[in-house]
């Protein structure tokens, strides 16, 4: 994801167990924030991150409950344990926020991202692109004589790997959705 040494939070049921707030190691956490789907709510969340100097590695948002007017924002952020706790508390006190779940701590959870990748090429490179796509179970959603658009879903690392392999084969554009995540089990 980036050059920082990332340590995943320990998987535990309570958000307060076992993690020392005073570690200074940078951790990556995936938060699911349930919000009222009202005007400006995304601006509020993003403004909170930029205003207080927090990091956003990935952010996705979409309505998940039409009747209840609820959206789910999935945000991947990095920081020391103390900063992560602050981020959760700051998110929690926004008026339209209902719940903040730290999936990294509440886990185990599944994280998935979807990407569309356009690869331009002919001849041997084109064949190689198809072969690689097969290995990654990417599907072709558009093709011309000189190009493919592949669709791939998976953990962000898998998509990173796929894009890296495709690059010498003629990647011209990449579109990624950002991470959606949910806890495993009931």
């Amino acid at each position, binding site marked *: 994801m980036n050059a920082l040494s990332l340590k995943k939070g320990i998987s535990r049921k309570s958000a307060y167990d076992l993690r020392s707030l005073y570690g200074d190691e940078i951790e990556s956490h995936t938060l699911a924030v349930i919000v009222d789907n009202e*005007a400006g709510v995304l601006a509020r969340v993003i403004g909170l991150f930029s205003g207080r100097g927090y990091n956003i590695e990935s952010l996705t948002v979409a309505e998940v409950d039409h009747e209840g007017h609820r959206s789910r924002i999935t945000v991947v952020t990095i920081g020391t344990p*103390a900063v992560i706790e*602050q981020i959760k*508390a700051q998110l929690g006190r926004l*008026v339209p926020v209902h719940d903040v779940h730290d999936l990294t701590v509440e886990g185990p959870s599944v994280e998935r991202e979807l990407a569309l990748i356009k690869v331009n090429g002919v001849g041997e490179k084109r064949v190689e692109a198809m072969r690689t796509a097969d290995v990654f179970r990417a599907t072709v959603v558009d093709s011309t004589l000189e190009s493919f658009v592949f669709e791939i879903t998976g953990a962000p690392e898998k998509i990173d790997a796929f894009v890296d392999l495709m690059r010498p084969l003629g990647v011209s554009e990449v579109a990624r959705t950002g991470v959606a995540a949910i806890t495993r089990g009931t």
Partner: protein
Amino acid sequence: MKTQMTGAQIVVQALKDQGVDTVFGYPGGAVLPIYDEIFQQNDIRHILVRHEQGATHAAEGYARSTGKPGVVLVTSGPGATNAVTGMTDALMDSIPMIVLTGQVPTFMIGNDAFQEADTVGITRPCTKHNWLVKETDALADTIHKAFHVAISGRPGPVLVDIPKDVQFANGTYVKPQKAAIGHYNPRVKGDIDKITELVELIEKAKRPIIYSGGGVINSGKAASMLLRDLAKSSNFPVTSTLMGLGAYPANGDNWLGMLGMHGTYEANMAMHDCDLMICIGARFDDRITGRVDAFSPKSKKAHIDIDPSSINKVIHVDIPIIGDVGHVMEDLLKIWKSRGRKIEKEAISKWWKKIEEWRAVDCLRFEQKGKTIRPQYALERLEALTKDHDRYITTEVGQHQMWAAQYLGFNDPHRFMTSGGLGTMGYGLPSSIGVQLAHRDSLVINIAGEASFQMNMQEMGTAIQYRLPVKQFILNNERLGMVRQWQELLHGERYSHSWSEALPDFVKLADAFGAKGILCKDPGDLDDAIMEMINYDGPVIFDCLVEKHENCFPMIPSGKAHNEMLLGEASTQNTIDATGAVMV
């Protein structure tokens, strides 16, 4: 049974139903329909200020001195942007405030219309929450919800932006009891297990201290009473932040004075050496902690706060208790008393002996000699001559503000209104107007610096218009004194732009407004002059010429610890290093 009204009528009806008696505002094109409704009723009094910033600070003064939310009404564009400083001030100090702004009609939003500004965008970071209302049917709900959000949990400013066509159109009115106010409802009860843990520490503490803050005042009168009960029955010493002054009385037996950057020696030393710190409704601001890694190294710390994000933000605490400080103190006292209200009596009297030693340093001592009034002396005399009055104090920002906190005594909550978190020069005069409106017969004094006073001095007109006998007590050192002090201590005495030149003649200025002006420069005349000010039935500008190069001590320089406090001029040489100098 549904009541149809225009949007403008809904606004006024909603304010009435929320119990609002006073609105501070300034009209303009985008709020004309609302002003038209205000014209046609008598329940809500509208106070016409001279600048929208004045309206926001007046609303703060009203709110801070009553505990009720302050209400502001301004027009779109420049009206709204002028209100930004006051909203930020209210946000930093957790003051409940409702700001209603006009907006260009919905069909013109986004077109750079005349006096259009993205008000909700601009004010998103300086409000607790804000709303743009696009339909008249949503207006009543939104205003009621705005009041709910402003006063619930940690209070703060909210803004409702109302396009002009929404004010003209018809819609349904709903009463506050019927309004859909949403899910926002911060919890007020603290976790009983955590409170019990704190009781256990209270029973064992040998060097305890109570560090209280503005949260105690915000929680309501009952919280201040509970704080007094806790201090009295435990015999624990009490210190407080600037925002918390008055919650525990300055004439109380356990009072150590204010703590922090310009706090007393005894309060800061006790904070540094304590073994149990009970933080009640305060937030470990950098003005309080000094150097964070040297902050109270030997203590267990408990923190009671209604805002979860205040806990562990700056200082790691051992016992976090999330809840309203009033509710939590009530439970705490109940549990502690039911267990036999034990304390380590002997250890605590030893602790008091130690505190008495620090107190003997007499860190606020000064001598009035010579022909120039020392600012401390002016405040000491003001205190002596006004302390028996039903008195409210506001301040501007600077040295005079810190001296006011040090030399005036506050024995009740809601009596000291100052801009703590934002440190807004220009806050004090309009704030005094808001206070006086809420307390017509009380003595309201704004302790001002000559520089701060000039930032909103146009509001003298408001004081005259509404016959508000606010007293502007200016400690005139012809300097941006606090800036000058930092330049002396941190910047090699290079006094870059920190003096007040071309000052107005404040007596003539008072005259021009129709107020009374009093000039005093001789210590011998001070008492008579102050009495003249108190006895004058109308607004007064009191120009008190004071020593120009006085510094405010004690002082913990930024980047230093509590026990590295400067007590006076002699200790100031080369005390602030480069790491301290980068801090504000």
